[in-house]
C-alpha cells in the first residue's frame, strides 16, 4: 500500500512542478464539460418545460375541438356536446399582463368535466384540499408552478395585480405546471380575459368519438397532428445537442494534448519507475487513477461552469422557444439528477478516451529504449493514407445518404429522415477530419516540389514531420471552424430570408379580423378615413386535400398581392392563372406533403363540392406547420358559404397614427384587442427573436472556436521539447535562433491557414446540409443557401489569429531557449 501511495505521489509530483500543465488539462476537461453540461441543461429544461406544458393539457391523450375557420366556440357548444354525451371540457386561454409588465398565460378550466388524462399524477396531487370550494368559488385560486411564481416574484397567497388594476385570484403553488402558465377556474379566467361566453377550445379525450352529425361542425385537432411545437422545438434542441457534443469533442482534444504533454515529459520518469520495480499493472493503474482524479475534478467543475453557462444563455433560449414555437421554458436553471449524471458521465468518459493514448503508452513503456524514441510518432504517411481512405469512405457514405435523402422519399429512411440528415452532417465532419492530415500532407508536398532553396525545403519537410503530432488539434480546429461557418451561415440565412419574407408578407400595416356582420360597414368607414391607403379583403377558409384539412386564403389578385407574395417556384404568369380562377398557389409545406410541382393539378374539397385546380406556384410560408392554399377571392365565391367566412382587412399605406386608427376601429366596431394585429410591432418582435437566436449561436460558436484554439495551443506547447531536439542541429549548423523561431511560427501559420482554407468549403457544405436537409426534415421548408463572404473572411482571420498565437508560442519557446539547452540535446 505504501508502495502504491509512493507511486501516486511520484506521478502527481509532476503536476506540482508543472501546475500549468495541470491547469491546461483541467481547463480542457472543464471547458468540454461546461459546454456539454450547459447545453444539456438547457435542453433538459426545455424538454421538461415542454413535458409540463403538454401534460397540463393532457398530452396525446387529449384532443382539442376548435371552431371552424371564421367561427368561435361558445358555452352553448360545450353544453350541446355534453348533452349529446360527448365528454368535452371547455378551455379558455389567454395572456394577461401583470402590473410589472410580465406576461402570464392563463388557462381557465372546468374541473367537473376535465378529461381523466389531465388529472395530475399522484405525486403532484399535494396542496390544499378544498378544491371544489375554493378553486371554483370566488375569489378562486391561481395555480402556478413554484418556479413560475419565483420568476414572477410571487408567492403562495399573493393576489398579483394586472396592468389595468384588476387582481388575479390568490396563488396556490402546484408543481409540474408549465412555466409562466397559471391555471384557474374557467369562471375566473373568462372574466379576466373578458371572454363572455366565448371559449377557446373544447378538450376531448383522444379515445372519445364524436357523433358524425357533430364531427363536421368542429375541427378536431389531436396532439399528433396538431401544431406539434414539441417536434419543432425538438429540432431546435437537437441542434443544441449537436453543438454540445461538438464542444465536448473539441474540448477533449485539449485534454488529449495536455495529457500528451504531461506524458511526454514524464516518459523518462515512468521508465525509471518501471526499472525501480513498479509492475506494468501498477503503473497503468496509477496513470488511470490520475486520469480519473483529473476527470472527476474537471467534470464537477465543468458541471458547475455548465450551469453558469446555461444560466447565461437560458433567457435567450427560452425567449426564442417562446417566440418561435409558443413554448414556454422556465427561466431559472435547475439541475436534474439525469443532467448531473449525464454531464459527469460524458465528461469523465471523454477524459478517459482522451487519456487512452497516455494509458497505452504507460502500458507499453519500454524500460530500455530511449524514451523519446518510444514517443516517436508512429506510422507517418502510411497511417495518414489509411485514415484518409477511411475518411473518404465516410464522406462517400455521407454523400450517398444525402443523395438518397434528396432524391427519394419513402423507403427504408422513412420515419428516420431527420436522424439520417444528422448522420449526413456527422459524416461530413468526421470524414473531413479523418482526411485532413493526408490533405495537408499532400498540399505541403506540392509546395516542396515547387520550392528549390534548401532552407525552404527543410522547412516544408519539417512541417510535414510535425503533422502527426498536430493533426488532432488541427482536425479539432477544422471541425470548429466549419461548424461555426455552417451554423452561422444557416442562422444568418434564416434570418435574412425570414425577415425578407416577413417584410413582404406582413407588408400591411394593420391586420384586422373583421366579424362577418361588420365587414362591409368597416370597409365603408375605412374608405372615409383620411390617411388610409389601400384596404384589402382577405377571406380565411378551410378545405380538405386528400382527406386532410388545409387552410385556404382567398385574396383579391391585384398589384398589392402580386408585389407581396414572393413565389419560390411557379409556372409562367402564375398570377394571371390564379386570377383566371382555375389555378391556385400552395405553400411549400403542402407542396412537400403532396410532392407536387407547379403545373400539377390539385384536387380539393370545399363545402360546396370538389374543385380541381392547377398549381400555379409555390410560396414560402416559414414557421407555419400547416398546409395552406391561396386562391383568387372570386374563385372562392360560391364554393364557400359566406357564413363560413372569417374575413380580415389588410390596411396598407397608412399615413398618420396607426395606434389611433386601431383604437377608433376597435371602438367603432366593438372589436377586441386581439382582433387587431399591429404588423410593424410583430415584425419588430420577430426581429428581436432572431437577434437573440443569433446571439446564442454566436456565443456557442465563439466558445467552440476558443476551445479549438486552446487545443491547438496546448498541442504546440506539448511539441516544444521535441521541436528543440529537432532544431538543435540546425542551430549548430549556423542558423540563428531568431530565424528558427520565425520559421517555426511560419510553419504553424501555414498549417493553420491550410486548415482554415479547407474549412471554408466544408463550412459551406455543412450550411447546405443544414438548410437543404435538416431544415426540410425538421420544419418542412427549405431555405435558400446564403453564403456570407464576410463570415468566411472572418473565419480565416480568426484562424490567422490562432495561428499567430500558436506561432508566437513556438517562437517564444525557441527564442527563450538558452544555447546551453540546445547543447544538451547533443549530450543525451
Amino acid at each position, binding site marked *: 500500500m505504501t508502495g502504491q501511495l509512493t507511486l501516486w505521489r511520484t506521478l502527481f509530483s509532476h503536476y506540482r512542478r508543472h501546475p500549468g500543465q495541470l491547469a491546461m488539462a483541467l481547463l480542457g476537461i472543464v471547458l468540454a464539460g461546461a459546454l456539454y453540461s450547459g447545453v444539456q441543461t438547457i435542453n433538459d429544461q426545455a424538454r421538461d418545460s415542454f413535458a409540463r406544458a403538454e401534460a397540463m393539457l393532457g398530452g396525446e391523450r387529449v384532443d382539442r375541438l376548435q371552431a371552424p375557420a371564421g367561427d368561435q366556440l361558445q358555452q352553448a357548444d360545450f353544453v350541446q356536446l355534453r348533452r349529446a354525451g360527448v365528454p368535452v371540457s371547455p378551455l379558455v386561454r389567454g395572456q394577461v399582463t401583470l402590473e410589472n409588465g410580465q406576461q402570464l398565460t392563463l388557462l381557465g378550466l372546468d374541473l367537473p368535466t376535465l378529461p381523466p388524462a389531465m388529472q395530475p399524477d399522484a405525486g403532484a396531487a399535494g396542496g390544499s384540499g378544498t378544491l371544489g370550494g375554493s378553486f371554483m368559488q370566488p375569489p378562486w385560486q391561481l395555480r402556478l408552478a413554484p418556479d413560475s411564481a419565483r420568476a414572477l416574484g410571487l408567492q403562495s397567497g399573493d393576489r398579483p395585480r394586472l396592468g389595468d388594476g384588476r387582481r388575479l385570484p390568490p396563488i396556490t403553488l402546484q408543481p409540474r405546471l408549465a412555466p409562466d402558465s397559471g391555471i384557474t377556474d374557467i369562471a375566473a379566467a373568462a372574466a379576466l380575459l373578458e371572454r363572455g361566453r366565448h371559449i377557446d377550445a373544447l378538450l376531448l379525450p383522444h379515445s372519445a368519438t364524436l357523433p358524425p352529425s357533430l364531427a363536421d361542425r368542429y375541427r378536431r385537432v389531436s396532439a399528433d397532428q396538431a401544431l406539434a411545437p414539441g417536434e419543432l422545438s425538438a429540432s431546435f434542441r437537437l441542434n443544441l445537442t449537436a453543438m454540445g457534443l461538438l464542444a465536448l469533442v473539441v474540448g477533449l482534444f485539449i485534454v488529449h494534448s495536455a495529457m500528451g504533454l504531461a506524458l511526454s515529459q514524464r516518459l523518462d520518469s515512468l521508465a*525509471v519507475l518501471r526499472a525501480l*520495480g513498479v509492475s506494468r499493472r501498477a503503473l497503468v493503474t496509477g496513470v488511470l487513477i490520475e486520469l480519473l482524479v483529473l476527470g472527476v475534478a474537471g467534470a464537477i467543475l465543468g458541471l458547475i461552469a455548465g450551469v453558469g453557462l446555461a444560466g447565461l444563455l437560458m433567457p435567450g433560449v427560452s425567449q426564442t422557444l417562446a417566440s418561435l414555437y409558443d413554448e414556454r421554458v422556465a427561466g431559472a436553471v435547475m439541475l436534474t439528477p439525469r443532467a448531473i449524471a449525464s454531464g459527469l458521465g460524458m465528461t469523465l468518459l471523454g477524459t478517459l478516451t482522451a487519456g487512452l493514448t497516455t494509458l497505452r503508452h504507460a502500458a507499453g513503456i519500454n524500460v530500455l529504449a530511449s524514451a523519446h524514441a518510444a514517443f516517436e510518432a508512429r506510422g507517418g504517411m502510411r497511417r495518414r493514407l489509411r485514415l484518409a481512405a477511411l475518411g473518404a469512405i465516410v464522406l462517400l457514405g455521407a454523400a450517398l445518404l444525402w443523395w438518397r435523402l434528396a432524391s427519394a422519399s419513402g423507403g427504408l429512411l422513412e420515419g428516420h429522415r431527420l436522424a439520417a440528415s444528422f448522420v449526413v452532417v456527422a459524416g461530413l465532419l468526421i470524414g473531413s477530419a479523418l482526411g485532413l492530415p493526408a490533405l495537408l500532407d499532400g498540399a505541403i508536398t506540392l509546395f516542396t516540389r515547387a520550392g528549390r532553396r534548401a532552407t525552404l525545403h527543410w522547412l516544408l519537410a519539417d512541417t510535414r514531420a510535425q503533422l502527426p503530432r498536430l493533426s488532432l488539434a488541427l482536425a479539432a480546429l477544422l471541425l470548429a471552424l466549419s461548424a461555426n461557418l455552417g451554423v452561422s451561415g444557416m442562422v444568418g440565412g434564416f434570418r435574412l430570408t425570414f425577415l425578407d419574407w416577413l417584410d413582404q408578407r406582413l407588408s400591411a400595416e394593420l391586420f384586422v379580423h373583421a366579424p362577418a356582420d361588420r365587414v362591409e360597414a368597416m370597409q365603408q368607414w375605412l374608405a372615409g378615413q383620411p390617411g388610409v391607403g389601400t384596404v384589402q379583403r382577405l377571406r380565411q377558409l378551410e378545405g380538405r386535400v386528400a382527406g386532410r384539412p388545409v387552410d385556404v386564403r382567398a385574396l383579391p389578385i391585384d398589384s398589392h398581392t402580386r408585389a407581396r407574395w414572393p413565389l419560390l417556384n411557379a409556372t409562367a404568369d402564375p398570377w394571371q392563372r390564379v386570377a383566371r380562377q382555375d389555378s391556385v398557389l400552395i405553400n411549400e409545406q403542402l407542396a412537400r406533403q403532396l410532392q407536387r410541382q407547379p403545373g400539377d393539378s390539385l384536387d380539393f374539397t370545399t363545402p360546396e363540392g370538389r374543385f380541381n385546380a392547377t398549381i400555379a406556384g409555390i410560396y414560402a410560408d416559414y414557421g407555419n406547420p400547416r398546409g395552406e392554399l391561396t386562391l383568387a377571392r372570386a374563385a372562392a365565391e360560391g364554393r364557400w358559404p359566406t357564413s363560413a367566412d372569417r374575413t380580415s382587412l389588410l390596411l396598407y399605406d397608412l399615413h398618420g397614427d396607426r395606434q389611433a386608427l386601431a383604437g377608433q376601429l376597435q371602438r367603432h366596431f366593438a372589436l377586441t384587442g386581439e382582433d387587431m394585429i399591429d404588423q410593424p410591432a410583430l415584425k419588430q418582435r420577430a426581429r428581436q427573436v432572431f437577434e437573440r437566436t443569433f446571439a446564442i449561436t454566436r456565443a456557442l460558436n465563439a466558445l467552440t472556436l476558443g476551445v479549438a484554439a486552446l487545443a491547438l495551443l496546448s498541442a504546440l506547447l506539448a511539441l516544444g521539447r521535441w521541436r528543440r531536439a529537432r532544431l538543435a542541429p540546425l542551430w549548430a549548423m549556423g542558423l540563428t535562433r531568431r530565424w528558427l523561431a520565425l520559421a517555426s511560427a511560419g510553419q504553424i501559420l501555414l498549417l493553420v491557414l491550410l486548415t482554415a482554407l479547407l474549412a471554408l468549403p466544408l463550412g459551406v457544405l455543412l450550411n447546405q446540409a443544414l438548410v437543404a436537409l435538416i431544415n426540410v426534415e425538421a420544419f418542412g421548408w427549405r431555405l435558400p443557401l446564403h453564403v456570407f463572404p464576410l463570415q468566411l473572411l472572418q473565419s480565416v482571420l480568426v484562424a490567422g489569429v490562432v495561428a499567430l498565437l500558436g506561432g508566437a508560442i513556438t517562437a517564444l519557446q525557441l527564442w527563450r531557449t538558452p544555447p546551453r539547452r540546445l547543447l544538451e540535446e547533443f549530450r543525451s
Partner: protein
Amino acid sequence: MPDTDTPLLECRGLTKSFATPQGALTVLDGIDLVLERGESLALMGESGSGKSTLMHLVAGLDSFDRGSLRLGGEELGELSDRPLARLRRERIGLIFQQFHLVPSLDVRANLTLQARLAGRFDPDWCAHLLDRLELAGLERRYPEQLSGGQQQRLAIGRALAVRPELVLADEPTGNLDERAAGAVLELLLNLIDEHGCALMMITHSPAVAAPLKRRYRLTHGRLVDTTTDGA
C-alpha cells in the same frame, strides 16, 4: 530469506539476440557467470558488445532467448512482469549513466523512492546515506538544481536505500568529469563494502574496473575472465 548456500547470481548458457533488418543479431551467445554474495564484478567491452544487455537481463528488464538466469535461486525466465518487478524493487539497486532521477521529486523523495515503493523505507539508513553521500542539507532541492556529481550520488543513494542484495551500475561515472568520477566511485565502493551487497558494474575504464574483485570482458557475445590480466 534467500538460501545463502546458492550463489547470488548464476547464468548458464544465457543467449539473447535482436531482430534487425539484416537478420537476427546475437548479442549474448551462451554466457556462463556466477556471482557470490558480497562479490564485486566489472563488466567491460566495446560499445555494442552487449554489456548493457546482459545487465538488463540480470535486472529482469528484458527477456532472454535461451539458457538459465537464477537470482538467489529464482529462475528469472519463469517469472512474469509482476514478480519480476517485485524482485527488482526489493533485491536490486540500479544506477544509470544518465542518473535517471525523477525531475519532479526533490532529493529526499528521489532517494527514498525505491525503498518506499518496496515498502522497506528505513529513515535512519536513508539519513545515514544522505550524510555519507554529502547530500545532507540539499534535501529540498530538485535534481535540476544539483551538479552532475551530486545527481549521481543521489542515484547511488536511491539504489542503496532499499538495501538491495545486488547493485547493478551502468557506467556510473561516465557522465562525470574526472575528479567527480573518482570521488563518486570511491563513495560507491565504500558504501557497497559497508552494506555488504554484491556489485556488478559496467565500465569501459580499466581504472574504474581495477578496484573490483573480478573483471570480465565481453567480446562477440562471449564472456572472458580478465581478472588476472594486468591487474
